C-alpha cells in the first residue's frame, strides 16, 4: 500500500528552487535511500515532506492513515545538543510531544512507550545518564528512540551515521534494518552509496541538475 506520494514536486526556499521535478512513491515497508551531492536538496526535500517548509509547487499525498505529524524524524545533530544537560530519558520522552496535546505532563503510557523504544535500541541501561557524556553512536540511538516514540509507520533519517566511527555506523545500520524488518517504512538520506545499495529497496538520486533519477 502506498504511504507517501510526491508528484512533480519542486522544493526550495523563498529565494529559489533547490530541486525540481521530484516524483516518487513510498510503499509500506519500503527502505528508500535518498542520495546526491551536497546542495542537491536532500534535506530540503525531507523538510518539505515533514511540513517544515512549504512545497514551491507539486503535490505530496499521505495515505494509509499517515500524516506529516506521525512520521518519526531523526534530524542531523546540532551544536546546541552536543553539550545539552539532559538525561537520556528526558530526551526520548520528548518524542511523545505530539501525544501531549493540551496536557501539560506526560502520562504513564507515554513513559512506558519511551522505555519500550529504549529497550528496542539497547539503551535502557542509560536512562538517567547525561546525553552530553554519551558516545556519538549512543547519542544517535537516543535520538532514534525519540523518533520512534513519534513514529507510527514511517521514519525519516537525515544522515543517521554522520560523524560515527565504522563500528557505530554498522550498529546503526543494523538497528535501522531491524526496524525495517519489523514493518517500519524507512526514508534515509545518506552519502554512503555502498550501504544504501546493500539495504535499500529503492533509491532516489537527486542530481545536481535538480532532476531525480530512480
Amino acid at each position, binding site marked *: 500500500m502506498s504511504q507517501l506520494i510526491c508528484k512533480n514536486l519542486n522544493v526550495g526556499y523563498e529565494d529559489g528552487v533547490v530541486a525540481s521535478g521530484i516524483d516518487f512513491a513510498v510503499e509500506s515497508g519500503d527502505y528508500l535511500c535518498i542520495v546526491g551531492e551536497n546542495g542537491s536538496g536532500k534535506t530540503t526535500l525531507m523538510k518539505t515532506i515533514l511540513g517544515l517548509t512549504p512545497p514551491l509547487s507539486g503535490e505530496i499525498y499521505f495515505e494509509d492513515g499517515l500524516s506529516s505529524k506521525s512520521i518519526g*524524524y531523526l534530524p542531523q545533530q546540532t551544536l546546541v545538543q552536543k553539550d545539552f544537560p539532559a*538525561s537520556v530519558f528526558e530526551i526520548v520522552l520528548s518524542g511523545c510531544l505530539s501525544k501531549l496535546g493540551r496536557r501539560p505532563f506526560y502520562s504513564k503510557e507515554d513513559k512506558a512507550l519511551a522505555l519500550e523504544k529504549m529497550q528496542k535500541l539497547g539503551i535502557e541501561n542509560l536512562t538517567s545518564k547525561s546525553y552530553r557524556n554519551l558516545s556519538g553512536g549512543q547519542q544517535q540511538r537516543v535520538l532514534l528512540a525519540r523518533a520512534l516514540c513519534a513514529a507510527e509507520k514511517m521514519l525519516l533519517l537525515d544522515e543517521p551515521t554522520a560523524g560515527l566511527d565504522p563500528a557505530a555506523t554498522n550498529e546503526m545500520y543494523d538497528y535501522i534494518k531491524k526496524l525495517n524488518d519489523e514493518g517500519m517504512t524507512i526514508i534515509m538520506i545518506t552519502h554512503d552509496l555502498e550501504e544504501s545499495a546493500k539495504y535499500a529497496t529503492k533509491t532516489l538520486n537527486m542530481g545536481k541538475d535538480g532532476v531525480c533519477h530512480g
Partner: protein
Amino acid sequence: MANLIEYLSFPFVRYAFIAGVLIALCSSLLGVTLVLKRFSFIGDGLSHVAFGAMAIAAVMSISNEMLVVMPVTIICAVFLLKRSQSSTVKGDASLAMLSVGAMAVGYLLLNMFSTSANIAGDVCSTLFGSTSILTLQGTDIAICVVMSIIVIGAFVFLYNKIFAVTFDETFAKATGTNTEIYNLIIALITAVIIVLAMNLVGALLTSALIVFPALSSMRLFSSFKQVIICSAVIAVVAALVGISLSILFSTPVGATVVVINIVIFLIFSAIEKARG
C-alpha cells in the same frame, strides 16, 4: 544576625526580600532555556532597551514608568527573537545596534530634558539599581508577586514543551508543535522578567540574574530537571544572602546579589574541576 532581624521589622525591608527572591527565581527558571538556546545576549540587549524606555518615560514625566517600559521591551523582545531566527549574523548585529542605540538615546534624552536636579544619580540608579529596591511600595510588590506567579505557573505548565523546543526546535516542529508560539511566550516572559529585575539590580545587571544561576548549575548537574531546580535554589539563596549583606553593610543591592552569584559560580566550577 540580631541586626538583620531588627531590620526585618521594617515593611520596606520585607518587601525587598519578597521582590528580590521572586525576581531572582523567575530569572533563573527562564535563564536555563535562554542560555541553552544561545539567547543570553538577548537578555542583555533587552535590559539596555528597557533603560532607553525608562529614560523616555522619565523625560515625558509619565508617573507610572511601567506603562512605557513594559510594552517597548516586549515589542523589542519579539523583534529580536524573529531576527535571531532568520539569520544569526544579522540577528547578532541588530541586537548590538539596538542595545547601544537605546542606551545612547536614553542617556541623551535624560541629559537634555530631565527636570531632575540629580541626573547622574538617576542614571546610576537606573543602571545599577542602587537602593530602589528598598523604596518599593505595596502596589509594586503586588505587581511583582502577580507577575511572578504567572511566570512560574506558565513555566511549570509548559515545562515539557519548553524542554522540547529548547533541545530540538526542528524535531518539535516536525511532530506538529507550534514552536513559534512557544518562542513568542519565551520572549514575552523574558521581557517581563527583565523589566521587573530592573527594580532589583538595575538595567546593566539584569542579565547576570538570568545567566549565572543557569551556568552554575550546569557545572554540576546533567539532567534538565536537576539543572532547573538547582538554578532556582541558587538564585533564591544568592538573593537572600545578597540582600541581607547589602542591608548589613550598606552596599548596593544589585551588585551584591550579582557578586554572590559569581562566588557560587566559582565554587561550582571548582567542584566540577575537583571531580575531574
